[in-house]
């Protein structure tokens, strides 16, 4: 059997994330269309959207600073860097020992910070409003993410993602209360980070409800394409992060080529199922009032904390 080089696997992962993230969003949109009785635009529609945006010209405000021009590239490159760290098809990654899960969260937080700055940069009312909402949501989500991740790290005895995935993948699947609670908290986090429905609606430009869309309202052309592609990758990466932390069974541990092919296949199935779950939640509940979010995200934090406590108490 042919062994693949870790460098090659790492490059492969980046390519997979770049290529599959739009398909994943297309899958979400397709399921959503079906669930609402509409005919969908197909799996590849996000590609067409991105391609269309790339050929369009950029309209830049006169008072746009370097932050506004720099942010799209940052928002695009952060998920690319993250896809080097998260074990998506194999735990045998070149750079996984250099960065752990906390660095990963900090990377995403940096991207979010710059998006908020860019939202305020032009000085329109919508950008500032979106930025302020985004920061409020971030301040409530990040404790929940970190608590969930600490619980996983405690159970996996490391903060390195590849190590955690390896430990869980080689253990027997068993319902551990701490991991179940952490997984529920993480599911909420995926909805929030992806800007999905109870928190934010990705398909609306209604001024009273938009959060992420409000921040990037001034972007156009290839800048918008990069941001859109970046946020698609962000959703996809959070889902794969959830897979790596909570259901890593089937992931390749070596560079064996058949094992990697199999692991890729499992990954597609798992991500597809999680996508269906996201759509189920989205069609099932209405968008929450902004000030109800404190309770929703407080609930996620509570879940993650209960997970951590039950790790100490019950295990």
């Amino acid at each position, binding site marked *: 059997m042919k062994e693949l080089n870790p460098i090659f696997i790492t490059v492969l992962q980046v390519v997979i994330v770049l290529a599959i993230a739009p398909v994943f969003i297309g899958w979400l949109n397709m399921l959503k269309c079906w669930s609402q009785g509409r005919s969908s635009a197909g799996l590849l529609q996000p590609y067409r959207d991105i391609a269309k945006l790339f050929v369009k010209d950029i309209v830049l405000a006169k008072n746009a600073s370097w932050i506004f021009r720099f942010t799209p590239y940052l928002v695009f490159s952060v998920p690319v860097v993250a896809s080097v760290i998260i074990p998506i098809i194999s735990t045998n990654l070149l750079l996984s020992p250099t960065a752990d899960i906390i660095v990963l969260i900090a990377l995403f937080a940096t991207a979010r910070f710059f998006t908020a700055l860019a939202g305020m940069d032009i000085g329109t009312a919508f950008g500032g409003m979106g930025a302020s909402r985004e920061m409020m949501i971030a301040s409530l989500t990040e404790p929940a993410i970190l608590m969930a991740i600490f619980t996983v790290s405690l159970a996996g005895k490391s903060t390195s993602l590849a190590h955690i995935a390896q430990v869980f993948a080689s253990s027997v699947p*068993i*319902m*551990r*209360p701490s991991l*179940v*609670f952490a997984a529920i908290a993480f599911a909420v986090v995926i909805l929030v980070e992806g800007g999905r429905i109870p928190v934010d609606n990705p398909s609306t430009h209604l001024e009273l409800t938009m959060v992420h869309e409000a921040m990037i309202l001034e972007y156009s052309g290839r800048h918008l394409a990069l941001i859109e592609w970046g946020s698609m990758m962000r959703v996809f990466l959070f889902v794969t992060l959830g897979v790596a932390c909570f259901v890593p069974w089937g992931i390749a541990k070596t560079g064996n080529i058949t094992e990697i092919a199999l692991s890729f296949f499992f990954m597609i199935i798992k991500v597809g199922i999680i996508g269906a779950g996201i759509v189920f939640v989205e069609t099932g509940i209405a968008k929450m009032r902004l000030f109800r979010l*404190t*309770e929703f995200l*407080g*609930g996620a934090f*509570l879940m993650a*904390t*209960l997970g951590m*406590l*039950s790790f*100490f*108490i*019950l*295990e």
Partner: protein
Amino acid sequence: MSLKILEQVNSFLAALVLLTAFAMLAQRRINALIHVFMWQGLFLSISTAIVGFIANKHHLYLSSVLTLSLKVIVLPYILHVLIVRLKIRKEVETIVNIPMTMLLGIGLVIFSYHLTRPIMELSTFITRSTLSVALATVMIGLLMMITRKKAITQVIGFLAMENGLFLAATSATYGMPFVVELGVALDVLIAAFIFGIFLFHINTTFDSLDVNQMARLKEDI
């Protein structure tokens, strides 16, 4: 089934009991609160049956059935009849806001963990780790009684406390003697009836179930 898996299932059920205790703290609607109480009773009764199987104590099966019939069927039914008769449709009113009570609840879990750790080290039972969950459930029930304005939510808090005590008894000593358990169960049933009558009287006297109104009972001198 191996003992190890049953033990795992039991601790998972204990975690679910704790979760329902928190869900009760978070509930704003009184109907939903009673539903959560039902779930807690169900988890408790399954957990009791499993402990009975692990420890090979047959009277625990009986008390499991008792819990099931009393806390999942009879008490929620009584509470339901009460809220229909008293025409309570309003949301749960709290003294401290809900996220704050949740944080207090987390604090109570940590506190009860520290309190029961020495006991857990001494005990040799398989179920010893659920003792701190049981204590936490008792404390969260107490917290619910303190932070709610309406008498009926306080009654549910009291019943949740009793659930916690029951879990403590099964996890710390594999259950109380059956006579005692029967007595406690009857006590709770009678208490629910008395509470019902009591609530009717509060409601007819004050036109509200808000316990703050009871300050009016003082005679003016």
